[in-house]
């Protein structure tokens, strides 16, 4: 029986603060620019949670596409008209462990959880 592909969850925020939906859109667009539509489709890139008050988005991707996703995140220099840098707070295999990691690192305030 085919096993479900492994996934990774990334907590990402923008500097200066931006809307999590805009962050997710910017990452998708950067990924597509770098690796094309086929690459984007196989990466299983998807925003799974957003914390608009804290400006944090949680993005899901497949394990195989993790380095590509990180590069796409690093490639974002603008959201709309504003100059931006996206920062990865943490990466994990499940949303729960991601939240645990963020709490350990005292990022829980940023996450609002």
């Amino acid at each position, binding site marked *: 029986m085919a096993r479900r592909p492994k996934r990774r969850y990334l907590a990402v925020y923008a500097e200066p603060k931006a809307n999590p939906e805009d962050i997710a859109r910017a990452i998708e667009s950067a990924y597509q*620019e770098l690796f094309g539509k086929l690459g984007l489709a196989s990466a299983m890139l998807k925003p799974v949670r957003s914390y608009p008050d804290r400006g944090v988005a949680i993005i899901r991707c497949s394990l195989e596409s993790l*380095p590509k996703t*990180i*590069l796409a*995140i*690093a490639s974002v*220099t603008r959201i709309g008209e504003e100059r931006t*840098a996206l*920062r*990865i707070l943490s990466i994990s295999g499940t949303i729960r462990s991601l939240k645990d990691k963020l709490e350990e690192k005292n990022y829980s305030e940023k996450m609002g959880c």
Partner: protein
Amino acid sequence: MRKYIDFWVRAESFENALSLLEKLRELGFSSAVMELSGEALERLEELRKRGEGIGVKVYRKLVLKPSGRKDLLKSLRSNRGKYEVITVLCENLEVALVAARDSRVDSLVIPPRPGFRFDKGVAALLKNYVELPFSSYLENKLEFLETAIRIVEFLGRRTGIIVSSAASNPLDLRGPRELASILQVLGLSQEEALDSVSKIPESIIGRNLLKLSKNYVARGVLKIG
């Protein structure tokens, strides 16, 4: 645990340098090799102390952009003892061939779409590390990737590759994993890619600090005691 080093950060003013150091600490770096000019260069010792307070060690970098072989050799002669790291921007093949094998050079930067071919000929001479500045990638992704693919293919087998931010603004800085991701995407393993922002720069700085110390006499000869 790995110590991460940003091998190229550019600052002109003292305040700019401090803001870069603070951001580097936040991103997880423990050292920065800085190309300083103007006020930041004049207040180097103060910057080093402030950097240590923040938790980031500061090293000086000289970036040479010579027009030819003679120009490069002259600059190396007059500057080697003053800087912890020397990098050469290779704008032509003549400079690249000299910089590739001169032991006074630590790393060479091949600009995106250089006007010369670098292949097995350059690779055969290569003794120094090749540096990929992430700011060039942010400026023009396609041109940078074209060159980076060839660097990894031809030169990556002969020598180590370093990825640095080459940023002059905190918004252009990237974390160690983000910088390393470019080499992972180009085919290196995660460990090899992370070495490009940790072990390789660390070994260069360690070697050069030894050369700059009072106890260093010549290659392989050290005063003890």
